[in-house]
């Protein structure tokens, strides 16, 4: 197993907490980590995923400080100790 550290911000933090340590099977991708995360909290799936299970386009994903496009998250593998930051664009003013 590998473990990734997921940091969440803004309204995602209210759903999942500020930080989640997520154990995953070796070879898991960023999309796999998001799938693993959403089942951990009520409302998690609706916050991050579309009805068809794809990651909502406005969600910002950063692996070790580098941005990952939502539609490429299924092809980006994670390594033990990676950090994944997930946040929404905050919109109010």
């Amino acid at each position: 197993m590998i473990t990734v550290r997921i940091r969440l911000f803004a309204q995602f933090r209210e759903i999942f907490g500020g930080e989640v340590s997520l154990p995953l099977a070796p070879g898991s991708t960023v999309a796999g980590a998001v799938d693993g995360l959403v089942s951990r909290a009520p409302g998690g799936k609706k916050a991050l995923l579309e009805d068809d299970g794809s990651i909502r386009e406005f969600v910002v994903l950063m692996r070790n400080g580098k941005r990952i496009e939502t539609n490429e998250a299924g092809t980006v593998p994670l390594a033990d100790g990676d950090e994944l930051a997930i946040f929404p664009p905050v919109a109010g003013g």
Partner: protein
Amino acid sequence: MLTDRERTRYARQIMLFGDAAQERLKDAEVFIAGAGGLGCPVAVYLAVAGIGTITLVDRDEIELSNLNRQILHWDRDIGRTKIRSAGEKLTEINPDIRVMAIEAEIGEKNADQLVGGADVIVDAMDNYPTRFLLNEVAQRKGIPLVHAAIRGLHGQATTILPGKTPCLACIFPCAPPEDVFPALGATAALMASIQATEVIKYLTGTGQLLDGRLLLWDGGSCRMEEVAVAPNPKCPVCSGSRAADPETKKKRRKRQ
């Protein structure tokens, strides 16, 4: 040249920046988009700091539910336009500056003209479609854009320097779905204060700007964190194809 009155009014910050920097503030024009939760405190702090010309644009009228955060608008102003209310108050707060309060909806057709030759654009909007428009104007004209946004106890801010930092569309390629967001005056004030500080730092050449970094505030745990942000080489707004690909542009607008 600063007048004696100005030298006295700004004495405490002239201690910080010096005479020449205060004159730069006096010569500057700052465009503030929005006279709401962020726009009110940004405008107040830029006005009292002696920004020579403040252009403030908003389209709305004041509602009772605005008053928990939009501090330039008072109970007696309900039903008036935000622009009239803000314009009057700012001129009273500092009669030594010029306040151009414009009642308008910022749109694709008028954004360039409204921003004019401003030295800095302050994003105090409450929606991404208008933010993206301001971002495009900022990129086109090479004007810094100081962004902030709030939701409940959370806030975010970054300073965008065209040609140097990622643009707003690099960081947030897609707008979130529109919703009615929770808002607290104290959160707006904090983020607005960061914006005003950035504007003053930029104009006076002081310190290190919030460029290439997204500041994330969580009032619930009283933590300020930051995430490094990088330009998106495929960004339709700033990656060189400045006249953004119409298809991508259309797609982005549709999602909003």
